[in-house]
């Protein structure tokens, strides 16, 4: 009898060492969300390079841990905390921009200067969402970080959140990447709504040849223009064009190659996994998270609409009209939104290949949202 009591007390003690006592329904919900991310990445090919690390990270971050152990991203001295440092201090995003710069070909943009403006127009999503978030009671700093979701640029969103609203970083990052993954679902209805069939059939001229020398000069000149006007974008824009210069200058091919392969891979693994780990239910399942998701969806929709409508506005003045579908590519989400434009163009006319043209507003959108982040940061930094 005593032995049974002893055993049951031991069993109870054993149970306490497992993760079950600390498991709340919120953790279960988050684990399911994490698995959903993994499923979408594998089965639907939605941004797998990001959704797999984030999704598995969400699962890891929601295993409840024994009290007093230093395990999670918020525990002083834990391994995950050291890895999370690069997220928290905004170090990973510029390194990702370095790699993006080293893999981006700006030549379509160089042969289509007008299309650059579509990347500016799409930033209306950022600032309208910012205003909306203000109205909903977010502080200006938080509202800035929420608004940048509309920039459709994961690294930019993480960078600005780490500077302005660290407590919302997890929700903002997850929202940004979720909607970036859902670009092929969100954008098409808006694109069909705002364009007529005639507009969707507009064909663009073949881009002109861009010389090597132009491609070398561009990153330097664009860097100077952007950062002189918005010095707050220095780190993101600097790394982006530094990477691009490494790629284009022909004499640092090995550095560019490393930046766009293993270096960005390593940072992507760590960034995605740590962002996922930071979404433990007690930090993430807050009313604000839901608001952030709602505002993020609005932001994406407004940005898409803004780009399309601005293209139609430009057509009022242009001899050679722009296909307004290209405006949707002004939200960055490289290269997904460009791909969506291409597919919808092909739907209407199997000979209308818009991909190369769509890359121009697409990369302009990256620059545009980095500038927007720089302005928000410089005006709202405390």
């Amino acid at each position, binding site marked *: 009898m005593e032995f049974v009591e002893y055993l049951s007390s031991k069993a109870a003690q054993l149970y306490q060492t497992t993760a079950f006592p600390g*498991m*709340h*329904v*919120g953790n279960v*919900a988050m684990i399911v969300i994490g698995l959903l991310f993994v499923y979408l990445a594998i089965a639907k090919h939605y941004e797998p390079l990001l959704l797999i690390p984030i999704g598995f990270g969400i699962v890891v971050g929601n295993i409840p841990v024994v009290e007093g152990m230093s395990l999670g991203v918020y525990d002083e001295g834990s391994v995950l905390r050291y890895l999370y440092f690069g997220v928290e201090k905004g170090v990973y995003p510029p390194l990702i921009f370095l790699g993006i710069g080293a893999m981006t070909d700006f030549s379509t*943009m*160089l042969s289509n*200067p*007008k299309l*650059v*403006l579509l*990347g*500016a127009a799409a*930033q*209306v999503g*950022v*600032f*309208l969402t*910012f*205003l909306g978030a*203000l*109205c*909903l*009671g977010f502080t*200006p700093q938080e509202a800035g970080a929420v608004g940048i979701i509309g920039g459709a640029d994961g690294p930019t969103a993480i960078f600005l959140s780490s500077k302005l609203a660290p407590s919302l970083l997890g929700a903002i990052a997850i929202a940004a990447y979720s909607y970036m993954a859902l670009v092929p679902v969100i954008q098409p209805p808006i694109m069909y709504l705002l364009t007529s069939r005639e507009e969707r059939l507009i064909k663009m001229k073949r881009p002109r040849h861009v*010389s*090597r*020398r*132009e491609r*070398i*000069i*561009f990153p330097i*000149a*664009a860097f100077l*223009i*952007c950062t002189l*006007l*918005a010095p707050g974008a220095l780190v993101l824009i600097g790394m982006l064009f530094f990477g691009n210069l490494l790629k284009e200058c*022909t004499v640092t*091919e*090995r550095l560019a*190659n490393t930046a766009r392969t293993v270096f960005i891979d390593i940072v992507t693994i760590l960034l995605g996994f740590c962002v996922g780990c930071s979404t433990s*239910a*007690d930090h993430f*399942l*807050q*009313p604000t998270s*839901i608001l952030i998701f709602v505002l993020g969806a609005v932001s994406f929709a407004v940005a898409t609409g803004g780009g399309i409508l601005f293209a139609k506005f430009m057509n009022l003045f242009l001899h050679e009209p722009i296909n307004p579908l290209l405006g949707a590519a002004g939200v960055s989400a490289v290269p997904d939104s460009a791909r969506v434009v291409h597919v919808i163009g092909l739907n209407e006319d199997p000979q209308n290949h818009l991909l190369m043209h769509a890359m121009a507003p697409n990369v*302009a959108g990256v*620059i*545009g949202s980095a*500038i*927007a982040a720089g*302005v*928000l940061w410089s*005006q*709202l930094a405390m």
Partner: protein
Amino acid sequence: MISSFLHPLTLGISLNFSLEPLWHDTGIPLALMGMFIVFFALIFISMFISRLPHIMAVLDKYLPQAEQLLNPPKPREGEISDEVIAVIAAAVSEALGKPHRIIHTRELTSRDMAWPQQGRWQIQTSHIPQK
């Protein structure tokens, strides 16, 4: 135990909607300023790009040799270089039974070009040192 399990789901969402923050400096003025700077910067870039061909024409006049230097006839990464073609030809003849040994060849991808090897390459193409 169930209440503790459900604990974090008791989310009381109370929406406070107010237009008042819009009129602060960090409201509409900031949003306008932001859009303005974004447009300004990208318009500048756009203008710069449209000017690029003219700038290039000027540069080509004063630094004509550079463009040529930047576009050497060496194979771009991914293309198959003459060297590789030679190797394949040798490999094929080897595979077809001719007893001719490949001594040493290298794939000239940039990844392989360690610095000392770049040195070796540059020595044949580089500037002559000034006396």
